[in-house]
């Protein structure tokens, strides 16, 4: 028996016509995907261009041409009066250029009477080579009177020619390496006296106006000091400020104002921080010019807003249920923050800090204003001594006219990029290490 309700709706009814534009929707989705892929490809192409240019120009900077030749430390040239026992300064002021010149002339078999040939032969060696000989003799005066095989750096032009960077097809008069020198280079290479070695000087030497002797040692030390100072100051200050603002400070007009200002400070051009540092740390506080201490302080000011913003975001991302759980157990606010919220926010804080540090590592403009753009030869022993930094060194080398500085500049960029990659890798590893599920 069936009961038919009088109000029942008709069972079969044509479904309402729907116009949802399926085709248009899918087309829009396909278009959007295509845009995305195009944007990605664009980015990858430029990244590839950047990296390939830098590496093509820069990888040769990690090798340096050196020439090995027998040098006779003749007593006649170094200490003709025989006074070195009573007056060691004789050894310092002796004419080592002549000692070296005699060595290369003998090695190449050049006629010592032809002054032009002797000059051309001597020009194949770095102008810093006599200093190397001097240091050898001062360290070991017993060398006087002996003939020793010494490896000295080749001149930057010879180095460039040896690396194939000089076009030898142009007329001799319009290039810096003469046909005669090219011949000598072949002669030396065949004798095994000229070879390319790993360029340790790039990492250990200070700046120099001779490209073959110029190194990043000062810049590396300076950047290291900068990073240590920035890390030591901005991490505790930034995290403390964020915790106070996020967890303890009352929400009123003053804290709103502070928040707006922090966000604005993050967007202030870095050169303004340089001016601030110049006015406050150097002119007012009287700290030394060009010192990495001042640079570190300036970069700390610049990095703080970044770290504070990242830390606050990380603190805010900790679920409220964890806070409620801790408070509900009778933890004080401080215990809640330090036992539960901070450990959970740690990955975000570390990521923000390392991004801020990487930013500071690559910063140039504020350092120019506080004098870290100086020509510094000696590696600074303390942050109070004059120094440069990696990006500033790149800037300075990029301004040099000589061909050989092009590869140095690119080489320095590679070193800087490696530093950044290592720091970002560190950030990823730290985040993995601290990350926890909840």
């Amino acid at each position, binding site marked *: 028996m069936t009961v038919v309700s009088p109000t029942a709706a008709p069972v079969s009814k044509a479904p309402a016509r729907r116009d949802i534009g399926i085709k248009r929707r899918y087309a829009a989705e396909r278009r959007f995907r295509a845009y995305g892929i195009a944007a990605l490809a664009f980015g990858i192409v430029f990244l590839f261009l950047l990296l390939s240019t830098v590496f093509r120009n820069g990888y040769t900077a990690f090798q340096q041409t050196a020439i090995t030749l027998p040098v006779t430390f003749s007593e006649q040239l170094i200490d003709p009066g025989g006074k070195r026992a009573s007056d060691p300064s004789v050894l310092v002021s002796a004419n080592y250029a002549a000692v070296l010149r005699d060595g290369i002339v003998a090695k190449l078999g050049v006629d010592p009477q032809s002054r032009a040939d002797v000059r051309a032969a001597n020009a194949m060696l770095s102008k810093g080579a006599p200093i190397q000989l001097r240091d050898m003799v001062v360290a070991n005066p017993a060398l006087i009177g002996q003939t020793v095989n010494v490896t000295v750096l080749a001149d930057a032009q010879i180095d460039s020619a040896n690396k194939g960077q000089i076009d030898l097809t142009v007329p001799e008069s319009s290039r810096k390496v003469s046909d005669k020198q090219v011949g000598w280079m072949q002669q030396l290479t065949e004798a095994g006296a000229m070879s390319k070695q790993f360029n340790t000087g790039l990492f250990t030497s200070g700046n120099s106006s001779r490209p073959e002797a110029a190194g990043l040692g000062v810049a590396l030390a300076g950047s290291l000091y900068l990073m240590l100072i920035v890390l030591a100051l901005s991490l505790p200050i930034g995290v403390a400020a964020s915790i106070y603002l996020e967890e303890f400070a009352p929400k009123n007009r003053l804290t709103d104002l502070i928040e707006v200002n922090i966000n604005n400070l993050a967007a202030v051009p870095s050169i303004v921080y340089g001016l601030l540092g110049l006015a406050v740390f150097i002119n007012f506080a009287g700290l030394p010019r060009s010192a990495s201490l001042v640079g570190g302080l300036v970069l700390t000011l610049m990095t703080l807003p970044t770290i504070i913003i990242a830390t606050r975001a990380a603190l805010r991302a900790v679920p409220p249920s*964890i806070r409620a759980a801790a408070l*509900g*157990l009778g933890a004080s606010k401080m215990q809640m923050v330090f036992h539960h919220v901070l450990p959970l926010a740690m990955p975000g804080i570390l990521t923000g800090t390392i991004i801020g540090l990487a930013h500071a590592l690559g910063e140039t403009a504020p350092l120019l204003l506080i004098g870290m753009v100086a020509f510094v030869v000696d590696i600074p022993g303390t942050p109070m001594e004059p120094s440069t930094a990696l990006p500033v060194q790149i800037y300075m080398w990029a301004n040099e006219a000589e061909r050989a500085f092009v590869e140095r500049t690119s080489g320095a960029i590679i070193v800087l990029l490696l530093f950044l990659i290592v720091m970002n890798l560190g950030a990823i590893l730290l985040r993995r290490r601290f990350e926890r599920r909840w």
Partner: protein
Amino acid sequence: MNMLSDVALEKALEKKTMKQVPLKMTGKDVSVYYGDKRALFDVNLDVRENTVTALIGPSGCGKSTFLRSLNRMNDTIEGCRVTGTISLDGEDIYSPSIDVVELRARVGMVFQKPNPFPKSIYENVAYGPKIHGLARSRADFDEIVEASLQRAGLWNEVKDRLHEGGTGLSGGQQQRLCIARAIAVSPEVILMDEPCSALDPIATARVEELIHELRANYTIVIVTHSMQQAARVSQRTAMFHLGNLVEENDTDKMFTNPDDQRTQDYIMGRFG
């Protein structure tokens, strides 16, 4: 602490003559404001010792607000203000002489969503005793952890993986872990804010059973949306509506013959 002897208390509970059970917490003219908005209107509600008191009512009726004012969790909400008096064993918990940290150790809380710390099961339970200095040696901690997990009925399930993450447990186990964590600091009152709303029926039954067992040692106040749950676990029920306490009565009476029409309607499912 107990005004009556255990036997008398048992008898009183047995006979469901709640009026004879001593009061644990009393709320007098309690009003709560969130900024300008008033969420509770002069609520007078007593919580009796070793009793499960259920707070029921439709969403937004103020039952959770009342629960949270019992251990001052409302303090953490910006702009929240409580007037009237709430006392624990006759002492006003909002008076300046009461330390909120100590209060929360005496009045523990279990939340709607299981919220174990992202640490090991052991650390979850040991955290409260650690910050309250209830244990010194490793052995003391081990004892507290084991006893708490035993009482929460979780010991047998987790004793072999105490040092694994608390968040790796199932939802029901996590909630029982939160209960173990709450009882590890030896509270007198446990507040439960819809403790089963995120759990499946089997886990819910397990937690209800646990509430039943815990009543012997603790005073429990539970907020619930489930009428059946209120009827199953509680001896006293309070019905809230629009920020007012509509009716407070013995559970049996409440669900069979309520005094107020609105309670009747709510229980029958006519609104809510």
